[in-house]
Protein backbone atom coordinates (compact mmCIF):
# COMPACT_ATOMS: atom_id res chain seq x y z
CA UNK A 1 0.00 0.00 0.00
CA UNK A 2 2.88 2.37 0.74
CA UNK A 3 3.85 2.48 -2.96
CA UNK A 4 0.57 4.10 -3.90
CA UNK A 5 0.12 7.80 -4.45
CA UNK A 6 -2.57 9.88 -2.74
CA UNK A 7 -4.66 9.69 -5.92
CA UNK A 8 -4.37 5.90 -6.08
CA UNK A 9 -5.09 5.51 -2.36
CA UNK A 10 -8.13 7.78 -2.61
CA UNK A 11 -9.52 5.68 -5.47
CA UNK A 12 -8.91 2.46 -3.50
CA UNK A 13 -10.70 3.90 -0.46
CA UNK A 14 -13.72 5.04 -2.42
CA UNK A 15 -13.95 1.71 -4.27
CA UNK A 16 -13.85 -0.15 -0.97
CA UNK A 17 -10.62 -2.06 -1.70
CA UNK A 18 -9.48 -1.17 1.83
CA UNK A 19 -10.64 1.10 4.62
CA UNK A 20 -8.94 4.22 5.91
CA UNK A 21 -8.53 2.38 9.21
CA UNK A 22 -6.55 -0.38 7.45
CA UNK A 23 -4.53 2.15 5.50
CA UNK A 24 -3.80 4.18 8.64
CA UNK A 25 -2.77 1.04 10.54
CA UNK A 26 -0.43 0.13 7.74
CA UNK A 27 1.20 3.60 7.93
CA UNK A 28 1.51 3.37 11.73
CA UNK A 29 3.07 -0.10 11.42
CA UNK A 30 5.58 1.19 8.91
CA UNK A 31 6.45 4.12 11.18
CA UNK A 32 6.98 1.75 14.11
CA UNK A 33 9.47 -0.33 12.13
CA UNK A 34 11.26 2.26 10.00
CA UNK A 35 11.12 5.55 11.87
CA UNK A 36 13.28 4.88 14.93
CA UNK A 37 16.55 5.30 13.00
CA UNK A 38 15.12 8.03 10.72
CA UNK A 39 13.66 10.13 13.57
CA UNK A 40 11.26 11.89 11.22
CA UNK A 41 8.36 11.96 13.70
CA UNK A 42 8.42 13.74 17.07
CA UNK A 43 4.93 12.83 18.28
CA UNK A 44 2.95 9.88 16.98
CA UNK A 45 -0.83 10.28 17.35
CA UNK A 46 -1.91 6.69 16.67
CA UNK A 47 -5.15 6.57 18.67
CA UNK A 48 -6.42 9.88 17.33
CA UNK A 49 -5.43 8.81 13.82
CA UNK A 50 -7.42 5.59 14.05
CA UNK A 51 -10.47 7.49 15.30
CA UNK A 52 -10.13 10.01 12.46
CA UNK A 53 -9.76 7.08 10.04
CA UNK A 54 -12.98 5.47 11.29
CA UNK A 55 -14.76 8.83 10.88
CA UNK A 56 -13.37 9.04 7.35
CA UNK A 57 -14.58 5.52 6.60
CA UNK A 58 -18.10 6.53 7.68
CA UNK A 59 -17.89 9.56 5.43
CA UNK A 60 -16.73 7.45 2.50
CA UNK A 61 -19.59 5.00 3.04
CA UNK A 62 -22.07 7.89 3.07
CA UNK A 63 -20.75 9.08 -0.30
CA UNK A 64 -19.42 12.44 0.98
CA UNK A 65 -15.72 11.74 0.47
CA UNK A 66 -13.38 14.25 -1.11
CA UNK A 67 -9.97 13.48 -2.60
CA UNK A 68 -8.22 13.66 0.80
CA UNK A 69 -10.82 11.80 2.87
CA UNK A 70 -9.18 8.93 4.71
CA UNK A 71 -5.66 9.77 3.47
CA UNK A 72 -2.97 9.61 6.20
CA UNK A 73 -0.58 12.53 6.40
CA UNK A 74 2.22 13.75 8.68
CA UNK A 75 2.02 17.32 9.95
CA UNK A 76 5.01 19.57 10.58
CA UNK A 77 5.25 20.26 14.31
CA UNK A 78 4.99 23.99 13.66
CA UNK A 79 1.20 23.82 13.12
CA UNK A 80 -0.98 23.99 16.21
CA UNK A 81 -3.03 20.82 16.75
CA UNK A 82 -5.65 21.07 19.47
CA UNK A 83 -4.93 18.71 22.36
CA UNK A 84 -1.66 17.49 20.83
CA UNK A 85 1.82 18.68 21.78
CA UNK A 86 3.08 21.31 19.33
CA UNK A 87 6.81 21.65 20.02
CA UNK A 88 8.18 23.53 16.99
CA UNK A 89 11.28 21.37 17.48
CA UNK A 90 12.18 23.30 20.63
CA UNK A 91 12.72 22.58 24.28
CA UNK A 92 10.82 25.84 24.80
CA UNK A 93 7.58 24.16 23.68
CA UNK A 94 8.35 20.58 24.72
CA UNK A 95 5.43 20.77 27.18
CA UNK A 96 3.07 22.87 25.04
CA UNK A 97 -0.32 21.30 24.27
CA UNK A 98 -1.91 23.50 21.62
CA UNK A 99 -5.30 24.78 22.81
CA UNK A 100 -6.58 25.35 19.25
CA UNK A 101 -6.06 24.19 15.67
CA UNK A 102 -4.12 26.09 13.04
CA UNK A 103 -6.24 26.97 10.01
CA UNK A 104 -4.21 24.50 7.91
CA UNK A 105 -4.93 21.79 10.49
CA UNK A 106 -8.62 22.65 10.53
CA UNK A 107 -8.88 22.61 6.74
CA UNK A 108 -7.08 19.26 6.38
CA UNK A 109 -9.31 17.81 9.11
CA UNK A 110 -12.37 19.17 7.32
CA UNK A 111 -11.19 17.47 4.11
CA UNK A 112 -11.10 14.19 6.04
CA UNK A 113 -7.32 13.76 5.97
CA UNK A 114 -5.94 11.63 8.83
CA UNK A 115 -2.99 13.05 10.78
CA UNK A 116 -0.74 10.24 12.00
CA UNK A 117 1.78 12.43 13.82
CA UNK A 118 3.86 15.60 14.06
CA UNK A 119 7.15 15.74 12.20
CA UNK A 120 10.64 16.69 13.28
CA UNK A 121 12.01 20.05 12.18
CA UNK A 122 14.78 22.53 12.81
CA UNK A 123 14.06 24.45 16.01
CA UNK A 124 11.49 27.16 15.22
CA UNK A 125 12.17 26.36 11.53
CA UNK A 126 15.64 27.90 11.78
CA UNK A 127 17.99 25.64 9.88
CA UNK A 128 18.70 23.95 6.56
CA UNK A 129 19.59 20.46 7.81
CA UNK A 130 17.17 19.54 10.63
CA UNK A 131 20.18 19.43 12.96
CA UNK A 132 18.97 22.26 15.22
CA UNK A 133 15.97 20.23 16.46
CA UNK A 134 15.72 19.66 20.23
CA UNK A 135 14.60 16.12 19.31
CA UNK A 136 17.77 15.27 17.40
CA UNK A 137 18.63 15.18 13.72
CA UNK A 138 16.69 13.34 11.00
CA UNK A 139 18.46 10.99 8.62
CA UNK A 140 18.07 11.25 4.87
CA UNK A 141 16.40 8.01 3.70
CA UNK A 142 18.81 7.89 0.74
CA UNK A 143 21.88 7.83 3.00
CA UNK A 144 21.60 7.71 6.77
CA UNK A 145 24.88 9.64 7.16
CA UNK A 146 23.47 12.69 5.35
CA UNK A 147 20.93 15.35 6.27
CA UNK A 148 17.39 15.45 4.86
CA UNK A 149 17.58 19.23 4.51
CA UNK A 150 15.55 21.61 6.59
CA UNK A 151 13.78 23.06 8.19
CA UNK A 152 10.94 20.67 7.23
CA UNK A 153 13.34 17.69 7.31
CA UNK A 154 11.03 15.25 9.09
CA UNK A 155 8.13 15.90 6.72
CA UNK A 156 10.35 15.38 3.67
CA UNK A 157 12.03 12.23 5.03
CA UNK A 158 8.65 10.70 6.01
CA UNK A 159 7.33 11.03 2.45
CA UNK A 160 10.62 9.89 0.85
CA UNK A 161 10.68 6.80 3.11
CA UNK A 162 7.07 6.02 2.11
CA UNK A 163 5.83 6.31 5.70
CA UNK A 164 3.01 8.57 4.49
CA UNK A 165 1.89 9.62 0.99
CA UNK A 166 1.86 13.35 1.82
CA UNK A 167 2.90 15.78 4.54
CA UNK A 168 2.92 19.48 5.35
CA UNK A 169 5.80 21.91 5.58
CA UNK A 170 6.59 25.58 5.88
CA UNK A 171 9.05 27.55 3.80
CA UNK A 172 10.63 30.80 5.03
CA UNK A 173 13.86 30.64 2.99
CA UNK A 174 13.64 27.24 1.29
CA UNK A 175 12.39 24.97 4.08
CA UNK A 176 10.01 23.05 1.79
CA UNK A 177 11.93 23.15 -1.51
CA UNK A 178 15.42 22.32 -0.20
CA UNK A 179 14.42 19.20 1.81
CA UNK A 180 12.18 18.10 -1.09
CA UNK A 181 15.25 18.31 -3.34
CA UNK A 182 17.58 16.53 -0.92
CA UNK A 183 15.06 13.73 -0.26
CA UNK A 184 13.95 13.26 -3.88
CA UNK A 185 10.30 14.29 -3.54
CA UNK A 186 7.92 17.04 -4.72
CA UNK A 187 7.45 20.15 -2.58
CA UNK A 188 5.58 23.39 -3.17
CA UNK A 189 5.86 26.79 -1.51
CA UNK A 190 2.82 28.86 -2.51
CA UNK A 191 2.61 32.59 -3.06
CA UNK A 192 2.99 34.53 0.21
CA UNK A 193 -0.50 34.90 1.68
CA UNK A 194 -2.06 31.99 -0.26
CA UNK A 195 -2.16 29.65 2.76
CA UNK A 196 -3.17 30.96 6.19
CA UNK A 197 -0.47 31.44 8.80
CA UNK A 198 -3.00 31.35 11.65
CA UNK A 199 -1.81 28.83 14.22
CA UNK A 200 1.47 28.29 12.38
CA UNK A 201 4.17 29.25 14.88
CA UNK A 202 5.77 32.42 13.52
CA UNK A 203 9.44 32.66 12.58
CA UNK A 204 9.66 35.52 10.04
CA UNK A 205 6.14 36.74 9.41
CA UNK A 206 6.74 38.50 6.08
CA UNK A 207 8.32 35.33 4.61
CA UNK A 208 6.67 32.28 6.22
CA UNK A 209 4.38 30.25 3.99
CA UNK A 210 2.95 26.74 4.35
CA UNK A 211 2.76 24.16 1.59
CA UNK A 212 2.64 20.43 0.83
CA UNK A 213 5.13 17.63 0.31
CA UNK A 214 4.08 14.75 -1.94
CA UNK A 215 5.61 12.26 -4.31
CA UNK A 216 3.81 13.65 -7.38
CA UNK A 217 2.66 17.03 -8.63
CA UNK A 218 -0.92 15.76 -8.83
CA UNK A 219 -0.90 14.83 -5.14
CA UNK A 220 0.67 18.19 -4.26
CA UNK A 221 -2.11 19.92 -6.23
CA UNK A 222 -4.79 18.12 -4.23
CA UNK A 223 -3.07 18.98 -0.93
CA UNK A 224 -2.67 22.63 -1.89
CA UNK A 225 -6.35 22.81 -2.84
CA UNK A 226 -7.25 21.77 0.71
CA UNK A 227 -4.66 23.99 2.44
CA UNK A 228 -5.13 27.26 0.50
CA UNK A 229 -7.71 29.95 1.02
CA UNK A 230 -8.47 33.33 2.52
CA UNK A 231 -8.52 33.42 6.30
CA UNK A 232 -9.76 36.51 8.15
CA UNK A 233 -7.72 35.35 11.17
CA UNK A 234 -4.43 35.93 9.30
CA UNK A 235 -3.98 39.63 8.55
CA UNK A 236 -1.65 38.85 5.63
CA UNK A 237 -3.90 36.23 4.07
CA UNK A 238 -4.87 37.23 0.53
CA UNK A 239 -8.55 37.69 -0.25
CA UNK A 240 -8.67 35.84 -3.52
CA UNK A 241 -10.49 32.70 -4.70
CA UNK A 242 -8.48 29.47 -4.72
CA UNK A 243 -7.63 28.29 -8.23
CA UNK A 244 -8.47 24.84 -9.55
CA UNK A 245 -5.05 23.22 -9.21
CA UNK A 246 -5.91 19.94 -10.93
CA UNK A 247 -8.04 21.08 -13.88
CA UNK A 248 -5.10 22.18 -16.02
CA UNK A 249 -2.82 19.23 -15.24
CA UNK A 250 -1.77 17.64 -18.51
CA UNK A 251 -2.05 20.81 -20.60
CA UNK A 252 0.59 21.05 -23.31
CA UNK A 253 3.83 22.90 -22.58
CA UNK A 254 4.22 23.79 -26.28
CA UNK A 255 5.61 27.32 -26.38
CA UNK A 256 6.03 27.64 -22.60
CA UNK A 257 8.76 30.22 -22.04
CA UNK A 258 11.29 29.04 -19.45
CA UNK A 259 13.96 31.40 -18.17
CA UNK A 260 17.25 30.19 -16.73
CA UNK A 261 18.88 32.79 -14.47
CA UNK A 262 22.55 32.78 -15.40
CA UNK A 263 23.34 33.61 -11.76
CA UNK A 264 21.96 30.16 -10.74
CA UNK A 265 24.49 28.29 -12.88
CA UNK A 266 27.72 29.96 -11.84
CA UNK A 267 30.31 29.44 -9.16
CA UNK A 268 29.08 27.49 -6.15
CA UNK A 269 26.92 25.04 -8.12
CA UNK A 270 28.14 21.46 -7.85
CA UNK A 271 29.05 20.18 -11.33
CA UNK A 272 27.17 16.91 -10.98
CA UNK A 273 24.02 18.76 -9.90
CA UNK A 274 24.39 21.04 -12.93
CA UNK A 275 24.52 17.99 -15.24
CA UNK A 276 21.27 16.60 -13.81
CA UNK A 277 19.53 19.98 -14.06
CA UNK A 278 20.68 20.41 -17.69
CA UNK A 279 19.27 16.96 -18.52
CA UNK A 280 15.93 17.92 -16.94
CA UNK A 281 15.84 21.08 -19.01
CA UNK A 282 16.44 18.91 -22.08
CA UNK A 283 13.20 17.07 -21.25
CA UNK A 284 11.37 20.39 -21.14
CA UNK A 285 12.73 21.24 -24.60
CA UNK A 286 11.34 17.92 -25.84
CA UNK A 287 7.99 18.86 -24.30
CA UNK A 288 7.95 21.96 -26.50
CA UNK A 289 9.16 24.58 -24.04
CA UNK A 290 11.33 27.45 -25.25
CA UNK A 291 14.30 28.01 -22.97
CA UNK A 292 16.17 31.30 -22.75
CA UNK A 293 18.83 32.68 -20.47
CA UNK A 294 17.74 35.51 -18.21
CA UNK A 295 19.43 37.53 -15.50
CA UNK A 296 18.47 38.23 -11.89
CA UNK A 297 21.29 40.71 -11.32
CA UNK A 298 20.68 41.19 -7.59
CA UNK A 299 20.73 37.45 -6.80
CA UNK A 300 23.88 37.72 -4.72
CA UNK A 301 22.02 40.08 -2.33
CA UNK A 302 19.36 37.54 -1.43
CA UNK A 303 21.10 35.59 1.33
CA UNK A 304 22.57 38.67 3.09
CA UNK A 305 19.19 40.44 2.85
CA UNK A 306 17.43 37.42 4.28
CA UNK A 307 19.84 37.21 7.23
CA UNK A 308 18.83 40.70 8.28
CA UNK A 309 15.08 40.52 7.60
CA UNK A 310 14.46 37.00 8.98
CA UNK A 311 16.42 37.41 12.26
CA UNK A 312 14.85 40.85 12.83
CA UNK A 313 11.36 39.40 12.51
CA UNK A 314 12.36 36.33 14.54
CA UNK A 315 13.71 38.42 17.43
CA UNK A 316 10.38 40.21 17.58
CA UNK A 317 8.21 37.08 17.19
CA UNK A 318 10.14 35.02 19.73
CA UNK A 319 9.96 37.72 22.40
CA UNK A 320 6.62 36.13 23.37
CA UNK A 321 8.47 33.20 24.94
CA UNK A 322 9.05 34.59 28.41
CA UNK A 323 8.50 31.65 30.76
CA UNK A 324 5.29 33.17 32.11
CA UNK A 325 2.20 32.25 30.10
CA UNK A 326 3.28 29.04 28.35
CA UNK A 327 6.40 27.14 27.42
CA UNK A 328 9.58 26.36 29.30
CA UNK A 329 10.27 28.03 32.63
CA UNK A 330 13.60 27.90 34.46
CA UNK A 331 13.51 26.60 38.02
CA UNK A 332 13.96 28.84 41.10
CA UNK A 333 14.25 32.23 39.40
CA UNK A 334 15.88 34.87 41.61
CA UNK A 335 13.79 37.67 40.13
CA UNK A 336 11.75 38.48 37.01
CA UNK A 337 14.78 39.28 34.86
CA UNK A 338 16.43 36.03 35.89
CA UNK A 339 13.19 34.22 35.03
CA UNK A 340 13.16 35.73 31.52
CA UNK A 341 16.86 35.24 30.85
CA UNK A 342 17.22 31.70 32.09
CA UNK A 343 13.90 30.49 30.66
CA UNK A 344 14.94 31.81 27.24
CA UNK A 345 18.59 30.87 27.60
CA UNK A 346 17.77 27.27 28.59
CA UNK A 347 14.66 26.92 26.40
CA UNK A 348 16.23 28.00 23.08
CA UNK A 349 19.06 26.23 21.24
CA UNK A 350 22.20 27.89 19.87
CA UNK A 351 20.97 28.71 16.34
CA UNK A 352 17.77 30.29 17.61
CA UNK A 353 19.80 32.36 20.08
CA UNK A 354 22.16 33.46 17.31
CA UNK A 355 19.28 34.64 15.16
CA UNK A 356 17.53 36.42 18.02
CA UNK A 357 20.78 38.25 18.77
CA UNK A 358 21.43 39.19 15.12
CA UNK A 359 17.88 40.50 14.89
CA UNK A 360 18.11 42.37 18.18
CA UNK A 361 21.36 43.97 17.02
CA UNK A 362 19.98 44.90 13.59
CA UNK A 363 16.93 46.55 15.13
CA UNK A 364 18.75 48.27 17.99
CA UNK A 365 19.13 52.02 18.31
CA UNK A 366 21.64 53.42 15.83
CA UNK A 367 21.75 50.32 13.60
CA UNK A 368 18.21 50.16 12.24
CA UNK A 369 18.86 52.18 9.07
CA UNK A 370 22.17 50.48 8.31
CA UNK A 371 20.76 46.97 8.54
CA UNK A 372 16.99 46.61 8.50
CA UNK A 373 16.07 49.53 6.27
CA UNK A 374 18.93 48.71 3.89
CA UNK A 375 17.79 45.09 3.70
CA UNK A 376 14.21 46.11 2.96
CA UNK A 377 15.48 48.28 0.12
CA UNK A 378 17.58 45.41 -1.25
CA UNK A 379 14.49 43.25 -0.95
CA UNK A 380 12.67 45.51 -3.38
CA UNK A 381 15.56 45.29 -5.85
CA UNK A 382 15.37 41.49 -5.66
CA UNK A 383 11.62 41.55 -6.29
CA UNK A 384 12.04 43.93 -9.23
CA UNK A 385 14.50 41.49 -10.85
CA UNK A 386 11.79 38.83 -10.86
CA UNK A 387 9.14 41.24 -12.15
CA UNK A 388 11.35 42.14 -15.11
CA UNK A 389 12.08 38.45 -15.76
CA UNK A 390 8.38 37.58 -15.80
CA UNK A 391 7.84 40.15 -18.55
CA UNK A 392 9.94 37.83 -20.75
CA UNK A 393 9.24 34.31 -19.47
CA UNK A 394 6.42 32.23 -17.95
CA UNK A 395 8.43 30.10 -15.52
CA UNK A 396 11.95 30.37 -14.11
CA UNK A 397 13.91 27.15 -13.58
CA UNK A 398 17.21 26.15 -12.07
CA UNK A 399 18.71 24.00 -9.33
CA UNK A 400 16.91 23.98 -5.97
CA UNK A 401 20.10 23.45 -3.99
CA UNK A 402 23.75 23.94 -4.96
CA UNK A 403 24.63 20.39 -3.88
CA UNK A 404 23.04 17.07 -3.00
CA UNK A 405 22.47 16.22 0.67
CA UNK A 406 25.54 16.99 2.77
CA UNK A 407 26.82 14.94 5.67
CA UNK A 408 25.46 15.25 9.19
CA UNK A 409 27.72 17.63 11.10
CA UNK A 410 29.43 18.91 7.96
CA UNK A 411 28.11 22.49 8.20
CA UNK A 412 26.59 22.64 11.67
CA UNK A 413 29.47 24.62 13.19
CA UNK A 414 29.63 27.20 10.43
CA UNK A 415 26.41 29.24 10.21
CA UNK A 416 27.33 31.22 7.09
CA UNK A 417 28.22 28.08 5.10
CA UNK A 418 24.94 26.53 6.21
CA UNK A 419 23.03 29.67 5.14
CA UNK A 420 24.49 29.39 1.64
CA UNK A 421 22.75 26.03 1.11
CA UNK A 422 19.61 28.12 0.47
CA UNK A 423 21.27 30.37 -2.10
CA UNK A 424 18.74 29.58 -4.88
CA UNK A 425 15.59 29.44 -2.77
CA UNK A 426 15.77 32.50 -0.52
CA UNK A 427 15.13 35.16 -3.16
CA UNK A 428 11.77 33.54 -3.92
CA UNK A 429 10.62 34.11 -0.31
CA UNK A 430 11.88 37.68 -0.29
CA UNK A 431 9.80 38.33 -3.43
CA UNK A 432 6.83 36.31 -2.09
CA UNK A 433 6.60 34.17 -5.25
CA UNK A 434 5.48 30.54 -5.55
CA UNK A 435 8.18 27.91 -6.04
CA UNK A 436 8.45 24.15 -6.34
CA UNK A 437 11.11 21.50 -6.24
CA UNK A 438 10.70 18.26 -8.17
CA UNK A 439 12.97 15.21 -8.44
CA UNK A 440 15.22 15.61 -11.50
CA UNK A 441 17.72 12.78 -11.37
CA UNK A 442 20.66 11.82 -9.22
CA UNK A 443 24.24 12.89 -8.60
CA UNK A 444 26.47 10.36 -6.82
CA UNK A 445 23.37 8.27 -6.04
CA UNK A 446 21.70 11.16 -4.19
CA UNK A 447 18.59 13.00 -5.44
CA UNK A 448 18.80 16.32 -7.29
CA UNK A 449 15.92 18.83 -7.27
CA UNK A 450 14.81 21.07 -10.10
CA UNK A 451 13.35 24.37 -8.90
CA UNK A 452 10.40 25.94 -10.70
CA UNK A 453 9.52 29.56 -9.86
CA UNK A 454 6.29 31.20 -11.03
CA UNK A 455 4.71 34.63 -11.00
CA UNK A 456 2.31 35.51 -8.17
CA UNK A 457 -0.56 33.01 -7.77
CA UNK A 458 0.63 30.86 -10.67
CA UNK A 459 0.79 27.67 -8.60
CA UNK A 460 -1.42 25.91 -11.18
CA UNK A 461 1.07 26.67 -13.94
CA UNK A 462 3.97 25.36 -11.86
CA UNK A 463 2.04 22.22 -10.95
CA UNK A 464 1.26 21.53 -14.60
CA UNK A 465 4.88 22.06 -15.64
CA UNK A 466 5.92 19.63 -12.88
CA UNK A 467 3.22 17.11 -13.84
CA UNK A 468 4.14 17.10 -17.54
CA UNK A 469 7.77 16.40 -16.59
CA UNK A 470 6.69 13.59 -14.25
CA UNK A 471 4.67 12.03 -17.09
CA UNK A 472 7.85 11.57 -19.13
CA UNK A 473 10.33 10.78 -16.32
CA UNK A 474 10.32 8.38 -13.38
CA UNK A 475 12.69 10.10 -10.94
CA UNK A 476 9.77 10.78 -8.61
CA UNK A 477 9.01 7.04 -8.47
CA UNK A 478 12.47 6.03 -7.26
CA UNK A 479 12.46 4.60 -3.73
CA UNK A 480 15.40 4.85 -1.33
CA UNK A 481 17.11 1.45 -0.81
CA UNK A 482 15.77 -0.22 2.33
CA UNK A 483 12.36 1.46 2.03
CA UNK A 484 10.94 -0.63 -0.85
Amino acid at each position, binding site marked *: MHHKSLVELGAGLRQGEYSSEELTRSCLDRVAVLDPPLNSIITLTGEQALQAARDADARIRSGNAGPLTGIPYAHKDIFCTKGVRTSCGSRMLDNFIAPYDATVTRQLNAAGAVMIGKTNMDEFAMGSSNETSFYGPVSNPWDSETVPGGSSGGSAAAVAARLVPVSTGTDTGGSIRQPAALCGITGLKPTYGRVSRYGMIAFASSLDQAGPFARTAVDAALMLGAMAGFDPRDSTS*VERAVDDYTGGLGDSLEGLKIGLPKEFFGEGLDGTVAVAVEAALGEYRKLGAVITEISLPNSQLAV*PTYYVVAPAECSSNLSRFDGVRF*GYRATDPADLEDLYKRSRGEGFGAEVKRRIMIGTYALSAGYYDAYYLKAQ*QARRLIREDFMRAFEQVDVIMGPTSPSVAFRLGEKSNDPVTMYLSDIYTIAVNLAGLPGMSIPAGFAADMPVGLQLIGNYFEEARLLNAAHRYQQVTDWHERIPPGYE
Partner: protein
Amino acid sequence: MALEAEEVEKIAHLARLGIDHDDIPEYARNLSDILAFVEHLNGVDTRGVEPLAHPLDAVQRLRPDEVTETDERELFQQNAPLTEAGLYLVPKVIE
Protein backbone atom coordinates in the same frame (compact mmCIF):
# COMPACT_ATOMS: atom_id res chain seq x y z
CA MET B 1 32.04 44.25 11.87
CA ALA B 2 33.62 42.18 14.64
CA LEU B 3 31.72 42.05 17.91
CA GLU B 4 33.57 42.09 21.21
CA ALA B 5 32.51 39.89 24.13
CA GLU B 6 30.95 42.81 25.98
CA GLU B 7 28.83 43.72 22.95
CA VAL B 8 27.55 40.14 22.81
CA GLU B 9 26.66 40.40 26.48
CA LYS B 10 24.83 43.67 25.84
CA ILE B 11 22.83 42.21 22.93
CA ALA B 12 21.99 39.11 24.95
CA HIS B 13 20.75 41.37 27.74
CA LEU B 14 18.59 43.41 25.32
CA ALA B 15 17.08 40.14 24.08
CA ARG B 16 16.75 38.81 27.66
CA LEU B 17 18.76 35.74 26.74
CA GLY B 18 20.87 34.00 29.33
CA ILE B 19 24.17 32.94 27.75
CA ASP B 20 26.79 30.82 29.47
CA HIS B 21 29.94 32.83 30.01
CA ASP B 22 32.04 30.11 28.38
CA ASP B 23 29.96 30.27 25.20
CA ILE B 24 30.46 34.00 24.63
CA PRO B 25 33.63 33.75 22.51
CA GLU B 26 31.94 31.36 20.10
CA TYR B 27 28.83 33.57 19.86
CA ALA B 28 31.10 36.58 19.26
CA ARG B 29 32.83 34.73 16.43
CA ASN B 30 29.62 33.40 14.83
CA LEU B 31 27.74 36.68 15.10
CA SER B 32 30.72 38.58 13.68
CA ASP B 33 30.85 36.16 10.73
CA ILE B 34 27.15 36.65 10.06
CA LEU B 35 27.41 40.46 10.30
CA ALA B 36 30.45 40.48 8.00
CA PHE B 37 28.43 38.44 5.53
CA VAL B 38 25.35 40.70 5.61
CA GLU B 39 27.56 43.76 5.24
CA HIS B 40 27.83 42.85 1.54
CA LEU B 41 24.69 44.95 1.35
CA ASN B 42 26.68 48.09 2.13
CA GLY B 43 28.05 48.17 -1.40
CA VAL B 44 24.59 48.34 -2.98
CA ASP B 45 23.23 51.64 -4.21
CA THR B 46 19.75 51.87 -2.69
CA ARG B 47 19.28 55.64 -2.95
CA GLY B 48 15.62 56.39 -3.63
CA VAL B 49 14.52 52.73 -3.29
CA GLU B 50 11.33 52.35 -1.30
CA PRO B 51 11.78 49.75 1.49
CA LEU B 52 9.71 46.62 0.91
CA ALA B 53 7.95 45.26 4.01
CA HIS B 54 5.37 43.04 2.33
CA PRO B 55 5.98 41.24 -0.98
CA LEU B 56 2.52 42.09 -2.33
CA ASP B 57 2.62 45.66 -0.94
CA ALA B 58 -0.58 44.86 0.94
CA VAL B 59 -1.96 47.12 3.61
CA GLN B 60 -3.36 46.18 6.99
CA ARG B 61 -6.90 44.92 6.71
CA LEU B 62 -9.34 46.39 9.22
CA ARG B 63 -12.36 44.76 10.80
CA PRO B 64 -15.24 46.06 12.91
CA ASP B 65 -14.25 46.48 16.55
CA GLU B 66 -16.46 43.69 17.85
CA VAL B 67 -15.78 40.93 20.36
CA THR B 68 -15.35 37.69 18.44
CA GLU B 69 -13.42 35.54 20.91
CA THR B 70 -14.86 33.68 23.85
CA ASP B 71 -13.20 33.49 27.27
CA GLU B 72 -10.92 30.44 27.27
CA ARG B 73 -8.68 31.46 30.13
CA GLU B 74 -8.89 28.11 31.89
CA LEU B 75 -7.94 26.21 28.76
CA PHE B 76 -5.07 28.55 27.97
CA GLN B 77 -3.75 28.55 31.52
CA GLN B 78 -3.34 24.79 31.39
CA ASN B 79 -0.13 25.57 29.49
CA ALA B 80 1.10 28.09 32.04
CA PRO B 81 4.01 27.09 34.29
CA LEU B 82 2.48 28.66 37.40
CA THR B 83 -0.96 30.16 38.03
CA GLU B 84 -3.17 30.90 41.01
CA ALA B 85 -6.81 32.00 41.01
CA GLY B 86 -6.65 32.63 37.26
CA LEU B 87 -3.52 34.76 37.52
CA TYR B 88 -0.03 34.10 36.13
CA LEU B 89 2.58 33.97 38.89
CA VAL B 90 6.05 35.48 38.55
CA PRO B 91 8.75 36.30 41.12
CA LYS B 92 7.97 39.31 43.26
CA VAL B 93 8.57 42.53 41.28
CA ILE B 94 7.75 45.19 43.90
CA GLU B 95 9.06 44.84 47.43
